[in-house]
């Protein structure tokens, strides 16, 4: 039969011939350049950028001490501790899923690292490695359960969230007798680990925490992955229309599992930071932070329904949270207003983003 041997040849022939024949035409055609305003308008992070500037100006005016270098470095540090995880959560949301367990997973990661090192009286790096394995395993479990069962990620990760919350407290009490871990400050490897996860540099009057570098690095990697790699294409497609993606051969399940592993990795980074900057870990911490990560991603332009958003947007969302949480302190207001402020910010940002997206699509 003549079909099968001839077929690849035929497609190759048509492909190359078309190249030769259409190239001049394509060259003669002026390349289409989109106007700058329109390109800006179609960026998912535009709304959050406007919001960040507004919040910044607001607190610069409302709080005298806000513009001092020490205040700004505190703001940046607060932003980075939210932003490290928010970036991965944003990618996950672009991929169409939620993770309610991210907040307590940070604590789990710190607990495992601390307790494994302490109990095994080993080098802290062994605990750090063990923690990475356990944390990634939780992420893969989330993704695997999701893709196996087809249940909504809200339910699956609500389950992991509750289980981890209980495990964190229960196991810590069982092992160390109290709700916090023992100090590992005198253990081998601690100074080096502290350098990696919890050091800071003095630049002029500005105290740059290493988490800020982690944060920027993760945002850069996430942006690269999202916009310039095959995996990024798959993430957008898995969130935008997973059935269509599967139909054209995208490994949707693997993509989603990978996204949960990404969240776990970032939770691990932050968990190690908390451990090595405070030396001990409170096992009840982290509850509620998962919503802050999601809010930062949404403020940054991620669609709740998936398929749209950016890593830079989530970073700006985290920055808004950092500015607001510290700005309220510098303005000497009651910190109780922080949550109210954030809720209002979230609603405003969601409305603004929806409006911008509509306009961007209408002006095409």
């Amino acid at each position: 039969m003549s079909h099968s041997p001839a077929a690849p040849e035929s497609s190759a022939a048509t492909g190359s011939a078309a190249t030769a024949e259409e190239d001049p035409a394509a060259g003669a055609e002026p390349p289409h350049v989109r106007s700058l305003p329109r390109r800006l308008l179609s960026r998912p992070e535009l709304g959050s950028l406007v919001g960040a500037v507004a919040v910044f100006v607001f607190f610069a005016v409302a709080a005298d001490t806000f513009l001092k270098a020490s205040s700004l470095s505190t703001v940046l540090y607060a932003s980075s501790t939210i932003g490290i995880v928010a970036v991965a959560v944003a990618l996950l949301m672009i991929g169409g899923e939620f993770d309610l367990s991210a907040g307590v997973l940070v604590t789990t990661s710190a607990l495992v690292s601390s307790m494994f090192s302490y109990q095994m009286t080993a080098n802290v790096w062994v605990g750090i490695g063990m923690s990475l394995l356990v944390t990634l395993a939780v992420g893969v479990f989330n993704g695997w359960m999701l893709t196996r069962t087809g249940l909504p990620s809200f339910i699956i990760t609500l389950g992991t969230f509750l289980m981890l919350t209980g495990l964190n407290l229960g196991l810590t009490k069982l092992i160390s007798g109290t709700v916090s871990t023992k100090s590992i400050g005198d253990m081998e490897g601690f100074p080096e680990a502290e350098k990696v996860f919890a050091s800071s540099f003095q630049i002029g009057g500005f105290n740059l925490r290493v988490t800020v570098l982690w944060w920027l690095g993760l945002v850069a990697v996430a942006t690269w992955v999202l916009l310039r790699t095959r995996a990024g294409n798959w993430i957008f497609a898995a969130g935008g229309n997973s059935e269509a993606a599967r139909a054209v051969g995208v490994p949707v399940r693997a993509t989603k599992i990978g996204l949960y592993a990404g969240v776990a990795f970032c939770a691990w980074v932050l968990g190690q930071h908390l451990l090595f900057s405070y030396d001990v870990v409170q096992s009840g911490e982290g509850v509620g932070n998962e919503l802050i990560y999601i809010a930062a991603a949404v403020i940054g332009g991620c669609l709740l329904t998936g398929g749209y958003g950016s890593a830079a947007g989530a970073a700006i969302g985290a920055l808004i949270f950092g500015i607001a949480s510290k700005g309220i302190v510098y303005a000497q207001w009651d910190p109780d207003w922080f949550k109210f402020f954030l809720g209002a910010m979230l609603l405003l940002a969601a409305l603004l983003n929806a409006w911008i997206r509509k306009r961007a699509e209408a002006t095409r």
Partner: protein
Amino acid sequence: MTDEQPESARPEQGAHPAEDAGTATGADTGTATGADTGADTGTATETDAAAEQSAADAPLLRLEQVTKSYGNVAALSEVSLDVHAGSVSCVLGDNGAGKSTLIKIIAGLHPHDSGTYTIDGEPARLGSPREALDRGIATVYQDLAVVPLMPVWRNFFLGSEPRVGRGPLRRLDVAEMRRTTRRALLRMGIDLRDVDQPIGTLSGGERQCVAIARAVHFGARVLVLDEPTAALGVKQSGVVLKYVAAARDEGIGVVLITHNPHHAYLVGDRFVLLKRGEMAGSHAKESITLDRLTREMAGGSELDELSHELERSPAPPPPGSAA
């Protein structure tokens, strides 16, 4: 595709006149498909015709007595279908007849329960759409053809993205992807202003055309289209049917699913009728007229009944005349 009416009487499938050179697809099509069907159709002699006949006898795809049920719902029972290179096989049927189920089996989205599915003469059991794609079977779905929020060029290459560089710097060949998308669309006669716009901003017809251009570009040997004209107006339907004909003229075996016998008759070479999951008829184009096809599809006696009912019902009073 522009100078040839789709409905113009063509010889048997596999006949690709060399005059095709006038179209955007160019002269390469003639040679490629000539090789594909194993005969130089430009100088058809007795022996060539015989060779062509035997080539046509060996289909790219063959479904025999294929059955599929979803739980208790028997969606397909004992359906047979052949798909030949350079010809259009139409599957006609009302809503719920099992058309989409049939193509989901062909595309590897669902496995069939019984019967045989052969590709190039070998029995196949596809586990995923990827396997079907790897064997040259591309499917454009009725409802899930594209990712609306993604730019046209990202959609075009989704699942088969070209890359450059190595190691951690391995990345999408973005410039090439944009260029190729534009070119492949132009080749099918689609001139997009901006391949960066989300594909969801294109019209339904344009989206179908992009999906078809995509399948052709990636060297599909079999192109399966699920109701590509269902949601389209008359003019857009015509455009889509022209691209179907263009794909056929490139030597691709097309499976066209539709519930519109007029559209099917314009481009089809053979017609399979489905009714509640069962085969209600299978005809070559020569052996059936459009009128009969339409009647069969509407279900002969049912149509008579309907026309009687419509005749008897009194004309509704013009709005506002009662007042």
